[in-house]
């Protein structure tokens, strides 16, 4: 059958070390910057490509465009003042920062969270996952020229932002999960409006399945492209959907349940091909699971009860010496906060473990050589990375 793959014979030989012998002086190579502003870039980072013809022989990642020094800032903020900062570490899915930080503080300060607050936290985290997957699937469509999927799912995401707005009082940076609980319970009639959004989402996802996942062009461009050898998962710190697309059923929600995930009924979708197609499919299936989880949470959530514990006076709140690591399963994989306290009113160290750090840099650089220029954007989007959490 007709093949889109170029004739490789015209390209330079691979050296004895298994890499291309790149000599810019020969004039056979071209440096090409992709980003920091580029439709196929997942946020503000850039990739310095070395191309030979339309084949990429080397890719170097450049990050730092978003560096605001959050972790250092946090060391100069009181424990309560860190609360409004953390969400900014990851723009599209900020709530994991709020949850991990709050849970870490609660553990070290010995604060109990009310039961209902745990349910609302899980609700918010799943709402955030919903939005994050919507962006990701829309993004993979966009990166491969199928922008209509991006438009549809951005609309659906906007509907969920409306639910965020009425629940938390903000659309993007919710600043809702305080240490000690959450700021408020559900507004009147929230469940009904959420169900409308979920139904709309399912309708658009059905259409997306027809347009994207049952699409000869999309299959052609994603199957077998951007393969990650599952043997590399450990050494490259690959987690979340990227690992699940390679047959590794890792999910913090299942492996070490937090909040109320042990009371929810769900399966972790797994694919095996470990290519762009498998990663997109895993996300699509997991998004369906998320929609189901949102329904479950709203149905099982206690209808009454406190949502916030009284805190000590936060203006001079000191937390005993200690350290902890709190993790959760974000839409991109294991997300964690390592918090060290020294008995003072300030965190001694806050370290954010964002999955994008490994996925968007080391792994991407490893995957780029040998791809076509046109596939780089799809490859990046398929890893589903958010630069702000690389540069926290």
């Amino acid at each position, binding site marked *: 059958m007709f093949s889109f793959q170029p004739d490789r014979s015209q390209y330079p030989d691979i050296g004895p070390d298994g890499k291309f012998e790149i000599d810019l002086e020969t004039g056979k190579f071209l440096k090409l910057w992709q980003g920091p502003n580029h439709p196929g870039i997942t946020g503000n980072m850039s990739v310095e490509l070395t191309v030979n013809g339309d084949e990429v022989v080397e890719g170097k990642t450049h990050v730092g465009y978003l560096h605001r020094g959050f972790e250092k800032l946090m060391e100069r903020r009181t424990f309560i003042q860190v609360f409004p900062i953390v969400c900014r570490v990851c723009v599209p899915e900020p709530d994991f920062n709020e949850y991990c930080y709050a849970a870490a503080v609660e553990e070290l300060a010995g604060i109990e969270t009310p039961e209902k607050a745990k349910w609302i936290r899980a609700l918010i985290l799943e709402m955030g996952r919903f939005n994050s997957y919507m962006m990701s699937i829309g993004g993979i469509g966009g990166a491969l020229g199928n922008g209509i999927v991006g438009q549809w799912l951005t609309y659906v995401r906007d509907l969920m932002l409306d639910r965020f707005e009425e629940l938390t009082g903000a659309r993007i940076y919710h*600043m809702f999960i305080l240490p000690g609980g959450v700021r408020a319970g559900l507004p009147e009639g929230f469940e009904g409006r959420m169900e409308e959004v979920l139904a709309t989402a399912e309708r658009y996802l059905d259409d997306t399945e027809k347009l994207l996942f049952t699409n000869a062009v999309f299959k052609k461009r994603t199957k077998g492209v951007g393969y990650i050898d599952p043997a590399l998962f450990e050494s490259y710190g690959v987690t979340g959907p990227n690992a699940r697309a390679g047959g590794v059923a890792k999910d913090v929600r299942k492996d070490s349940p937090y909040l109320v995930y042990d009371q929810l009924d769900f399966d972790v979708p797994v694919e095996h091909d470990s290519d762009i197609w498998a990663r997109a499919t895993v996300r699509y299936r997991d998004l369906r699971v998320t929609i189901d989880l949102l329904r479950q949470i709203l149905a099982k959530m206690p209808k009454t009860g406190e949502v916030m514990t009284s805190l000590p006076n936060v*203006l001079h709140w000191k937390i005993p010496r200690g350290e902890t690591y709190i993790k959760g399963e974000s839409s991109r994989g294991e997300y964690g906060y390592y918090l060290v306290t020294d008995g003072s009113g300030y965190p001694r160290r806050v370290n954010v473990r964002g999955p994008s750090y490994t996925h968007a840099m080391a792994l991407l650089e490893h995957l780029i050589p040998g791809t076509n220029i046109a596939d780089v954007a799809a490859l990046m989007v398929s890893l589903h990375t958010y630069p702000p959490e690389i540069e926290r």
Partner: protein
Amino acid sequence: MGSLRDVLSPFTAWKHVIETPVTLKNPIGREAADRYRGFHQNDTEKCIGCGSCETICQNAAIDMVPVDDPKEGDSGLRPQIDYGRCCWCALCVDVCMTGSLTMSNEYTWVDTDPDAFRFIPGVDEKPWDAIAKGYQRPGERMLSGLTRPEMMEMEPEARIDNFDEIVAGYSREQAVLEADRCVECGLCVATCPVHMDIPDYIAAIREGDYDLGTQILYETNPFSEVCGRVCTHKCETVCAAQYEGEPIAIRWLKRHIIDNVSEERRLEIVGTPQVLPTGRKVAIVGAGPAGLTTAYDLARQGHAVTVYEAQDHAGGMMRYGIPEYRLPYDALDRDIAVIRAQGVEIKTGVRIGSDITLAQLKADNDAVVLGIGLHMGRSTRVPGSDAPGVEAAIDLLRRITAGEEVPVPKKVAVIGGGNVAMDIARSMARLQKQKYGAVGVTVTALEDFAHFLADKEEVTESIEEGIEILDARGPQEMVTFKSGKRKGEVKGLRTWKVISIFDDQGRFAPQYDEADEIVHEAEMVVEAIGQMADVSLLGDELTEALQWNRGRIAVDADGHTSEPWLWAGGDSVHGPDVIHAVADGHKLAASVSAMLAAKAEVAK
């Protein structure tokens, strides 16, 4: 690889062409959700300018700035918000002590002037000021405690037959919990007559650094142990924590610091004057809080200070006016010991005017300071008020302290509704309990309970101890025995119901309901309606020479009288309590010291 289905299926997307567009025509006009956190609103009537919002804001978006019309007791500042910095986290709303700061759900605002986005909510009028929707702090304050730990006190049955101290003081745990509630706004500092660094010494309690706490106390107040027990704590009336909760127990925290530092350690911390003697001499008349504070300050500056006290012990009203169950004498003695350690000489049992003349003091010293207090009781002057069995509260309290024999009848009536009335009622009740095993004291106050002058806790504790307190009763006559062996002696007090105390112009002109008359059976009637200064020590010539202000010696802002060598302060000039007397003492010392320095300059 592909199937026919994979080729045809994407074309189903064409159905969206005939669907209604989902985009909003005018997204700017869209109303935000009910609890959306939009631009701030501030109810300036409720706001006290405590600045907790400014403290918590991690973006430094809030500045406390002066406003034109602050309320009594607030800081005079209001939050100004810079929306170039605000991140809409609403911690300022959550931490607001009064609940005045809220956020409207208004989230779009267009203005071409960049400076417009920095304004004072509530002061600079904005279109969203009246919007009820938005973010309010949910329920009570969650970010700081609401109630103070309960103070351990002796039960009424245990305390009524003795003069043991009632209040036990906070434990370390209680004190830390209470100190934790402080938001360090400093409204208390401004209100305290001596401007004690209250937030700082409360912070020292949280840190467990009692040495530092003591040091901070002594920077402003040499009577911290006394004030830790009997201060009228004006600071607590402005405390930011009192809105939606109890004010911080500032007085008990002060006491907690002193309770945790031994007398020896306290002397080490305060130390002795580290200056060369100036050779200047100052005489102080009266060893009360005003006189001794003046003495403390002047001695710390190297001046030779002698305090003359008519009574046998130093302390003035703190010793002879306040009962021992509220202020144990050894607590007072420890405060005085620190003052003595500064080299202050206190000559007790020396009455100026009779033992030594004021003229003699003037001749022997560079300056003389009067802190003579209010040791003469005022009389109601109702018929029979000069009868045997009618006593002045202040005189009776002094005699109890001095250990003199006081008559203890089974039935006592007290006229007055202030703290002195409570003090004498409770003292007499204790003596009655010791003597008869029963309490028989009735307090009749002119004011109704809503306008009582005595502290609420004094009234409550008095009632607990079995004292009968009748409000709105005006004394009309001391009923005396008309015949028999005890002819002329008091046998009761006749009172009428008070309808109003002041007339339309606010002048004292009580109106009574004569039909509502009670005769309170009593073999002793104690008048506790106020005191005045005994100024006989001045002598005729000086009395004539001095300027007076409504029966009190007139002084300028520094406590200087019209005579260049004479200063006066404390209760006899300003009133009304220990902490004001201490404040007066500092003022007097500063003024005297400035004069002595000027003298030294001239001598050069």
